[in-house]
């Protein structure tokens, strides 16, 4: 269980996060949604442990900041892509902590091979990571997070670089992780997809949490509409699944 209490974050003189309070239960999928600049990525980095915050953020009642004992995987939106590193090598970095120094273990090699298959990258393991397409890179990042066998996985816009086909593939593989007992926190700009996969949704605006709760509940709440300046409509499909659509300017329903 991750508990955030009165989290404030400033960078220089600029306030980024204000009085953020949240509880994120284990083995669930929580989605941070909101417009650009709402503070989603910053909150993700607080939970990762790399941003110095004021207030209290604990993971299983241990303070998060710079705690190297946790096993957290992070899938950034803008990774640094090293030149001259192969896909296999890049994904194998996920095993660095477990294997220690020296050559990688055989079980790590097997796990990486399996994960490359799962993410559709098997056969490309010798290619340079810098030569991958955006979608392949995204899958390599997720593969690297998967081989970490993490307790918690943080994903920053994991589907933004992907076409619909690969979006579904990636989201399904995250779903499998959740079933294996991994806690998932992701940011996502597509609220429909968020509602489809996530158990909980936290809506952020201007560094504050606007509302949070079970996905269905959040999606249908009027506050969501106001967060997006009333420019979205929420429909419910026959299956009961909500769909969020932007309104066309000047069109009133």
């Amino acid at each position: 269980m991750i508990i955030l209490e009165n989290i404030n974050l400033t960078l220089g003189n600029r306030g980024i996060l204000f009085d953020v309070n949240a509880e994120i239960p284990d083995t669930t999928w929580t989605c941070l949604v909101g417009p650009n600049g709402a503070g989603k990525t910053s909150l993700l980095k607080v939970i990762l442990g790399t941003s110095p915050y004021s207030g209290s953020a604990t993971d299983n009642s241990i303070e998060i900041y710079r705690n190297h004992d946790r096993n957290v995987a992070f899938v950034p939106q803008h990774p640094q892509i090293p030149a001259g590193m192969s896909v296999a090598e890049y994904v194998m970095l996920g095993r660095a902590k477990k294997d220690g120094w020296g050559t990688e273990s055989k079980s790590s090699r097997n796990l990486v091979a399996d994960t490359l298959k799962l993410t559709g990258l098997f056969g490309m393991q010798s290619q340079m990571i810098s030569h991958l397409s955006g979608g392949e890179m995204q899958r390599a990042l997720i593969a690297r997070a998967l081989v970490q066998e993490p307790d918690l996985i943080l994903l920053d816009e994991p589907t933004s670089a992907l076409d619909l086909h690969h979006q579904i593939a990636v989201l399904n593989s995250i779903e499998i992780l959740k079933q294996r007992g991994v806690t998932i926190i992701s940011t996502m700009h597509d609220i429909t997809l968020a509602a489809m996969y996530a158990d909980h949704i936290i809506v952020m605006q201007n560094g504050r949490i606007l509302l949070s709760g079970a996905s269905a509940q959040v999606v249908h709440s009027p506050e969501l509409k106001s967060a997006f300046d009333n420019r979205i409509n929420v429909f419910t499909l026959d299956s009961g699944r909500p769909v969020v659509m932007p309104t066309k300017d000047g069109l009133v329903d």
Partner: protein
Amino acid sequence: MSGEELRSIWRWQITLFAALLLLVIALLGISFGPIHIPFTSILRSFLGMDSHLSEQDRSVLFDIRLPRVILAALVGSALATSGAVYQTVFRNPLADPYLLGAAAGAGLGATIAITNSHGNLYGLLPAFAFSGAILAVVVSFFISGKFFAEPNSLLLSGIAVGSFATAVQTYLQQRHSASLRPVYSWILGELTAASWQVVTWSAIYIGVALIILLIVAKQLDGLMLTDEEAYSLGINPNKIRVIAVIAATLATATAVAASGLIGFVGIVVPHLVRGLTHRVTNRALPTIAITGAAFLVLADLGARTLLSPAELPIGIITAFVGAPFFLFVLRRKRLINQ
């Protein structure tokens, strides 16, 4: 599933090949010199068999050539490994072990030892060069202030400290013009001072530094990512940077103290190994260390034989061989990336 589906990241055959190369080159290095000693006798004496070597030949072999070859190997591996590590830490392919002012600091230390009016500091030259190198890097750290938050600011302060040390050194040299030649010859690098005593202390310091670097080698790869990514992979990027720079500086300072300023090894060898294997990973570090050793033993063989019985400063050889090789690797790399 079978492990053969994914080959291991680093193929140890490459390392083994480099090691064999080093062995052959080291044997060559021991075999050549102004005094002719039959190769078979050398082999026999190394294998512990009766070699019929004269007292003088034995002395030449074990007290002159062998320590010199070992010192060349130690210095070569130290410079090559430190260069590779600096290139990763500063994300700069042109970083070399002398980047943070180590060379200029060592140069100043050596000049102080040489120009000291009482002259009795000459024997302490290695200690002065070593302290100068370490001091320059420490001062660079302090000036940059931000430590590792911004590697580039450390780089800049290293350059500033280096320029300052060079200025002081030049001033001292001007004041003691008789010291010009010894300082100059030291700057070009020389392995002539090789003795078992020098080999022993070099081996200790360089050995410790290299072991540390080999242990953190894999984590160094994490420095090629963003700090957040590295952190999430269980790597503490700032800690690794500090450890890596301290160890690389220790190795560099020792190499400089033992043999003066031998340029180019720290850039050429890492690029050579990485270029030929198409790998940037620091798993290549053991191979880079071995190749650096082989490179410098070979260069020293050249330094001893090209103008024999005179010496050619080894720094001239490494630059002369290094620069064209470097261009070749660069060009090759560019062709591959196209």
